[in-house]
């Protein structure tokens, strides 16, 4: 093996009550694409934060080019040639691409020079992006390119990518992979964090698998099956969601020409969406982020009521009704953003159980709230969905993303909905929790409920959907049976080739 670019030796980092990284060692050679695999809470984030200078290890050493490397802050890490693309973008919607990139630079050149550099880099690496566009108008894939180019301008030796493909269409993923392969060929090492095992198999040279803060295995992804890797990650045999062949029932939700104006300057208007949803079926809705997913969920949950005649639930017109009335009837929803939308971060799980459970769980007696019953409801969600938390009194923000997601989905599933609409149900959730959530959704459908899953994870949609449709620019394609549909067809549906409008991506 060539001399490593970066080697980590026995890194240990403990937080109160949990050892995030325990004796973790890792070597990355120049030009290597190295995957970091693990469940949520396995310590991947802590590890890359140590490399990026955001967190200091308690013990252990890092070496870069054989020299001791201990960045005290991200600036030092960047100076040493480490770049990182975060899962959540830190971009200002109202500014241009070039302005956003300039903001993140220490010695930003003049904007015109910078724009030229951006164009050069974007052409060199096949990342189409115009420096003058307003970030608010960009798709998620394009926003990610902004972040990548921001890193590439610093000419990194090591590029860390945290879950980069979760918001991309298959075509965008291909573009990204081409870029990453080109970077790798030029000698840039890439540390690639992902849950998507097939991606890792096609892209990465080596993989290090973390579980509960420890390295539990190394493998060459090309020679290992996705299932084997997943089992290493969770330390047990994985259950593939199962479904029985089902009889589809009556129409429970009927959308007729559903249209709604954009909620704000960076929102998407819903345009003439029609759909019949039958009891017992799972409808998967794909699409690139920012094509109306949030807006569709808000129109269905009642958060943004729509005009009369657009939404019928069991033949009753519920268009103008708000969330409480819709919940009462059996139409439940779980939005994408866990913190601050599906759950109130500073409130306890009991209070968060009350948030949506008060109507259907009978926690509200003429306006007076039954807290002991809410606690019992929260406890039952925690138990059935295996939410790891000290108890229902814990604040929502103290839970890891995956655990909170299990709670949020579980809270709705356990209210026995007739129709459940979920947006990105397994986003940022580890493999075993994701499998549990999908199974719960399938069980729900099996018991006669109708489920709409809005997701950007195509594998997920293919796994659980009976029918598939795609959102593009606020329009919904005609749903098609999911069986036998190819990834290319899906990509075209997502890109808008089905409809009247030109492709958005």
């Amino acid at each position, binding site marked *: 093996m060539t001399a490593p670019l970066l080697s980590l030796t026995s890194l240990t980092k*403990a*937080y*109160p009550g949990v050892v995030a990284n325990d004796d973790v060692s890792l070597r990355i050679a120049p030009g290597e694409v190295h995957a970091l695999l693990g469940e949520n809470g396995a310590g991947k984030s802590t590890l890359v934060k140590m490399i990026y200078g955001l*967190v*200091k290890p308690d013990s252990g050493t890092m070496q870069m080019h054989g020299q001791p490397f201990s960045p*005290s802050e991200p600036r030092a890490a960047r100076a040493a040639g480490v770049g990182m693309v975060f899962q959540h973008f830190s971009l200002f919607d109202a500014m241009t691409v070039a302005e956003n990139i300039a903001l993140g630079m220490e010695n930003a050149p003049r904007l015109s020079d910078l724009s030229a550099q951006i164009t050069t880099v974007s052409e060199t690496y096949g990342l189409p992006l115009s420096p003058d566009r307003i970030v608010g108008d960009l798709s998620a894939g394009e926003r990610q390119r902004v972040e990548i180019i921001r890193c590439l301008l610093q000419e990194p030796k090591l590029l860390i990518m945290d879950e980069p493909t979760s918001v991309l269409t298959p075509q965008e993923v291909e573009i990204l992979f081409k870029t990453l392969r080109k970077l790798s060929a030029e000698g840039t090492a890439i540390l690639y964090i992902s849950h998507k095992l097939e991606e890792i198999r096609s892209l990465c040279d080596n993989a290090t698998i973390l579980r509960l803060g420890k390295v539990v295995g190394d493998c060459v992804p090309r020679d290992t099956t996705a299932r084997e890797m997943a089992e290493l990650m969770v330390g047990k045999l994985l259950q593939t969601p199962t479904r029985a062949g089902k009889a589809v029932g009556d129409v429970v939700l009927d959308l007729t020409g559903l249209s709604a104006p954009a909620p704000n300057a960076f929102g998407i208007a819903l345009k003439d969406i029609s759909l019949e949803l039958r009891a017992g079926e799972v409808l998967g809705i794909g699409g690139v982020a920012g094509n109306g997913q949030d807006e569709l969920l808000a129109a269905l*949950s*009642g*958060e943004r009521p729509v005009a009369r005649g657009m939404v019928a639930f069991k033949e009753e017109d519920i268009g103008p009704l*708000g*969330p*409480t009335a819709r*919940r009462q009837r059996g139409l439940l*929803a779980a*939005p994408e*953003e866990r*913190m*601050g*939308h*599906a*759950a*109130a*971060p*500073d*409130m306890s799980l009991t*209070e968060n159980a*009350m*948030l*949506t459970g*008060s109507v259907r769980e009978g926690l*509200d007696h003429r*306006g*007076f*709230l039954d*807290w002991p019953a809410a606690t019992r409801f929260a406890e039952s969600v925690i138990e059935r969905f295996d939410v790891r938390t000290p108890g229902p009194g*814990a*604040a929502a*923000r*103290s839970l890891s993303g995956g655990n909170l997601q299990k709670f949020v989905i579980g809270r709705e599933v356990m209210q026995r909905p007739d129709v459940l609409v979920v947006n990105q149900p397994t986003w940022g959730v580890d493999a075993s929790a994701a499998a549990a959530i999908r199974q719960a959704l399938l069980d729900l459908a099996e018991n006669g409920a109708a489920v709409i899953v809005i997701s950007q994870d195509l594998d997920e949609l293919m796994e659980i959907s009976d029918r598939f449709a795609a959102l593009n620019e606020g329009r919904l394609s005609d749903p098609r049976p999911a069986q036998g549909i190819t990834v290319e067809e899906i990509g075209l549906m997502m890109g808008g080739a089905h409809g009247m409008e030109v492709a958005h991506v």
Partner: protein
Amino acid sequence: MIALTKRPEPSRAFSLAAPLLAVVATMIFGGLLFAVLGKDPFEAIRTIFWEPVFGEFAFFYRPQLLIKGAPLVLIAIGLSLGFKAGIWNIGAEGQYIMGALFGAGVGLAFYPMESALVFPLMVLAGAFGGWIWAMIPAVLKVKFGTNEILVSLMLVYVAEQFLASMSLGLLKNPEGFGFPGSRNLQQYASAHNADLIAGTGMHWGVVAAFIAVIFAYVLLARHRLGFAIRVTGDAPRAAAFSGVNPTRLVVFCLGMSGLLAGLAGVFEVSGPAGQVTIDFNVGYGFTAIIVAFLGRLHPVGILLAGGLMALTYIGGDIAQSKMGLPAAAIQVFQGMLLFFLLAFDLFTNYTLRFGSRETA
């Protein structure tokens, strides 16, 4: 390097300790301030905190505590409901004035008829006056998206002009030899908000303040509406998702705070103040903002904070007259209290990290 790190969970211990630490820090730095002014700091602190309750003239000052504390608590309770939900009524002073004017107006309209109904009618009118004054920013916000902070604040000055106009015109005492100011309601038995037990300072306003504390506590802890207020303050999108109607919440919170401020006004004008005069309002509506935050927007906390604030008012007055401390120094002292409270409050959700090593 000093850095703030967010705690995974808010610290209960710190949220209880913060007000105490704030009082201690205020005593220390206030003491320094008094020392710089050439006064004995220990004597000054003792005068402010000890004299009103346990000093030689405590029999006179103790009722004053209730009289000064009650309107503060009553107004602060109302404000805290809105503040918790992120609805900022800064104009309680104006609603307090309008409550007094409406209440006194109704009382004076019946003069000199004696009836047990006069006072209850005045109370209702006062509550209505404060409520309607708060409805102006509420309706403008709901209908046109105006900023309730600015509108409610500006309406304070409008209310002050009303007050001046009323004391010089419509409500002026016809037998007052031309002096500005209304008839004295203390001399009109049916309208007088007298001490319920003579000499204790325990008037109807004090009773109302205690009821408001209990009401707010139950509302926030047990009722759907209080829960909606708390969720809206913590996560507005989660509140909307759960089915809270933001319009109704704005109307309720502003209305409730106006109503309680109006009540404080009518109890004051018919009791301790006695009459409508140009300088009737003394800033209770603004000080109540401090009281609300000092009490951490919690009903019981507000009760204690109101008492503490009344104490510094009375103690400050004593210190002014006995030790010759300037009034501005007392105001700085009160300001320090809020400043330190907000500063210490931060540590409920954050911890300090010194140096580059983490203390975790």
